[in-house]
């Protein structure tokens, strides 16, 4: 099927009469700004889709958010944590502080923003709440990136 050139005028008229997609959540801005999340329908259509891919996608979400947050002028842990909790909740993880994929995502972000030396160690310690086992996994993510 080709786009027919004789349809051009109607697209011009339609384009001028009504704009682009209007958000369905017209009552609130919040719905559209949720993180990306696959629908149940898509899971039913392919139930055997790889759990490893889902883990990787989740790590990337954590890494992207952490990378963005590390670019802010003042890093406030309490505020940062809320965003991570939201991403983890959407993935079905309640205690993300001990979740391997979350910590790997954080480690990857620290490498992505090119933190090194004592600055890196300070962030690692703060984000791991000084727990050795968590710091090791963050380091694993850092080395992977």
């Amino acid at each position, binding site marked *: 099927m*080709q786009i027919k050139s004789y*349809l*051009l*005028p*109607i*697209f*011009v008229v*339609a*384009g*001028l*009469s*009504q*704009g*682009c*997609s*209007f*958000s369905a959540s*017209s*009552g609130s*801005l*919040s719905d*559209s*700004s949720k993180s*990306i999340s*696959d*629908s*149940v*329908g*898509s*899971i*039913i*259509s392919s*139930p*055997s889709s790889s759990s490893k891919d*889902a883990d990787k*996608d989740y790590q990337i979400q954590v890494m*992207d*958010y952490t990378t*963005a*947050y590390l*670019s*802010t*002028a*003042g890093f*406030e842990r309490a*505020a*940062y*944590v*809320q*965003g991570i*909790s939201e991403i983890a*909740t*959407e*993935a*079905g*993880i*309640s*205690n993300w*502080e001990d979740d391997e994929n979350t910590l790997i995502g954080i480690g990857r972000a620290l490498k992505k923003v090119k933190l090194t030396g004592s600055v890196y160690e300070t962030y690692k310690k703060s984000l791991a*709440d000084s727990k050795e086992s968590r710091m090791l996994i963050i380091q694993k993510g850092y080395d992977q990136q």
Partner: protein
Amino acid sequence: MISSKASCRADISLPNFNSILLCLIFNLACAQNLYAQAVNYLYINASEGTASGGHTALRFDQETYHFQHFPGGIIRLVKQASSDFDFQYRYLENRTLYQASIELGFEQYKQLRDHFNLRFLLQKQQNILLKEVQLNLALLEPKTTDFNSLLTIRGAGLFRQNAYPVKTARFSSLQINAQIKQRLGSIFLTQKTIQLKQKLAKIKPQPWPENVLHLRKDIFISVPYSFAQQYIDSVSQLLFLQIIENNTPLNESSYFSPEDQLFFLSEVEIEKIRQLQANLIDNLLSLLNSKRPDAGSAALVLYARIISLSYSINSGHWVFLDTYADNSPSITYAEVEIYKTAFKAQQQDALSSIAEIKQQLFSQQAITEKDYSHFERLSNYYYERERGLNKRQEIRTAGEQRLPSISAPLPTYLLPKLNAQEIEIAKTRLINYQANLTQQVQALYPYDLFTHNCVTEIFAAIQNAQVNAEPLANLLNGINNDPAGFIPYLSFANIAGQYNQQVFASFREQQLEKMYDKENNLHVYLREFNTLSAQDYKFNELDAPFLFFTHDQVWPRPLFGTLNIITAASMGVYGSFTWPFDTGKNLKKGAMGILMSLPELAFFNIRKGTYKHLSFPESAE
């Protein structure tokens, strides 16, 4: 990328082994960059409803980014899973999707994707900041509707309010509660409660840092940990401790057990669930000792899940928590009845998927919380249909989550104790923040039909990404050189010739193709050309009245268009009588029907007809 390749070829021509070796090393180094990945520019054709002039988007594999027009006259970037985007536009809205693939090097692709993603995240963050102002204002004005809708404790609604523990063996949380209390120690709950009450008394509204109140298109801001958020977090923790202390049972409406035999548990399966429960208890104890500010709501949800697992273990039958979001959209049973076949099919499909996922779940060494969440969410989807169809009740059509979140209102006895002056000062400050931030958002992201729409914003974002790639430069030239390039269709037509193109058929187009393949063509035509006998189409409130489909046939369009206008006009006449009773709904529908049919007189088609409650396609076609 291209220049690197060319320079390598030049080097290879030198009859020198070292040069060849150097080139090979260089080639290996830039191999990643040479690996091409396609970013896809999408055009979705016109139809009735939103985006009637067509829509555009940019797709990076499984992620699709597009700009949408929002209330308040702003345009913002939205990110969706590509499968969900396709389902919305190609299936439910029945539109054809056209795709032009722009090949980029690996690094260029990554740079462009990261730019769009960062833009999405920072706009989202600015939106959260505005919501934070609203939340804080609501806490200072307990009689407003915002107070009731925004100030809620996530997860607290999973538990009964003011109830005594249930003592039936199957649904008792006594044992698990005692186990957790024992591990916490006898004084933990008392000490923590005292600490939290002291903390609550100290929380006061504070001015926000200046730097978060200045929004920019390219700077990600840190949302302050506000007075209201601190308050809600502390109250959540306090409520959790009270629930543990009182051994409060789950709210009976917050859990369910599906009837199908698939949900019975064997001894081996019960043992695996016990292991999962033990892991979740460890997680809960870790959470209670965590510095995480939102540990309270996470603990409420986790504890509810631990109890529901006890119910599963005791009854030998899966018991799940209701994971639907508060205020999930639902349809009445009258509508369920119209789409009964579709819902029954969805129920069966879900059951097949559950069987497959259950097998995967129990074949693992241990069940993880993430995998259980996935399974529980799917079971919610299934049970919603089982319950609705069997008990002839409404069905929630969206809102299944991986973690439950049923909330309860902020208890009035725990409201902050502020004096009138403190409230007044804080309110004035927040109202100023709100006015100032709203003004900034409107100035940064204004929607304009000609200059700031779904097309112009995509290309502006591509330009801002400053990716050094020839295919993108060509793309931008194609748009910048056409004064009418802001129109979705033209934006695609201008660039499509330069790139690989693909067309993805709409739902109706796919169905017709299948029908013509399998059935007598004349029979299919006579059945499918009109809305009354078409097999899959059911007239719904999203469409203005029409009788004949005109998208797939050009020559009969004026005739069918005339008949469609007569149909819509009849609705309009009827609407003029019912106007006092339906606030002009039918009259408006009639007028819209005429408007959508007028182009058909001149051989043009806009309206496609929409579909509701479709099942997700098995694979993209």
